């Protein structure tokens, strides 16, 4: 299993909508609106690193209002 944290930079004030959309993606365990230079941090737990990429690059970046994502894979 792979655990990943995905930082999401938005370009819309509709942070709630983004968070709710992200939370419905399969493999995403939780998503929170945070203060700072990113707007949302999502935690994903999936079978393979490729699935992480699918979630971040295709699904999350496909949501309107998402400007950019940055993914961190847990090593422990």
């Amino acid at each position, binding site marked *: 299993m792979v655990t990943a944290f995905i930082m999401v930079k938005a370009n819309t004030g509709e942070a709630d909508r983004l968070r709710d959309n992200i939370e419905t993606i399969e493999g995403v365990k939780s998503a929170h609106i945070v203060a700072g230079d990113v*707007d949302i941090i999502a935690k994903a737990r999936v079978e393979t690193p490729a699935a992480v990429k699918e979630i971040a690059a295709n699904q999350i970046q496909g949501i309107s209002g998402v400007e950019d994502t940055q993914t961190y894979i847990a090593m422990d």
Partner: protein
Amino acid sequence: MRFVIIGAGRVGLRTARVLGEEGHEVTLIERDEATANRARNQGFTVIDGDGSQEALLEEAGVEDADAVGALTGDLNVNFSACLIADHYGCRTILRIDEEYRERIYRKYADVVDEVIYPERLGAMGAKNALLGGTIRAIADIAQHLQVVELTITEEAPINGYTISELQLPADSTVLAFGKTDGDLEIPTADESLEVGDRLVVLADFAVLSDVRQIVVGKTRGRAEAEQGADIESGTTTEDTEANTGGAN
């Protein structure tokens, strides 16, 4: 009153200056050495370092400060500082770096009493300058509502009529009226509207251009930039210009 301001850049320093001029006590925190020295040379009390550190905030006197302004360009620093300041019972002001975040922080940042976006005020000043003196934004009241001051021109359809004859669109209302060189006052019905007179109108953005056409006329701002007297209770020209400036 006592204030702590984090960030001695363009926004923080000007805020400190204005507060200082009004007799308030201000301590700045700045992590960039050159920026800190510049403020110090101008007579401000400056503490060197990262304003998101509790020890530095304590050194700056957060314990008996009335309010803390987190005015750096770094949102992480600003938010942490507000968290700590809130814990000490201060009123907290957070500067945001991007406009869309205004809504998010207003809703979620419970520890923040007020969110400010200086670029909005800067843009208002720039817009006024570009429009060339016949229309001047005074304040954004809400997303859709703005208070503007309009100067009546020769071509204005209302030129020569009285206040009572003035028909503005729905969603707009006259707040104040001033003769060319006079102060702004509550409008009275028989007042005549002449070239150079000023009307302060509260209007929905949707009807702003209609209001403009009625009061100013069709000609677009020739740069005859008349400096009207400022409304005392409103944002003054000086305030608007003082905030023109983006990053620290």
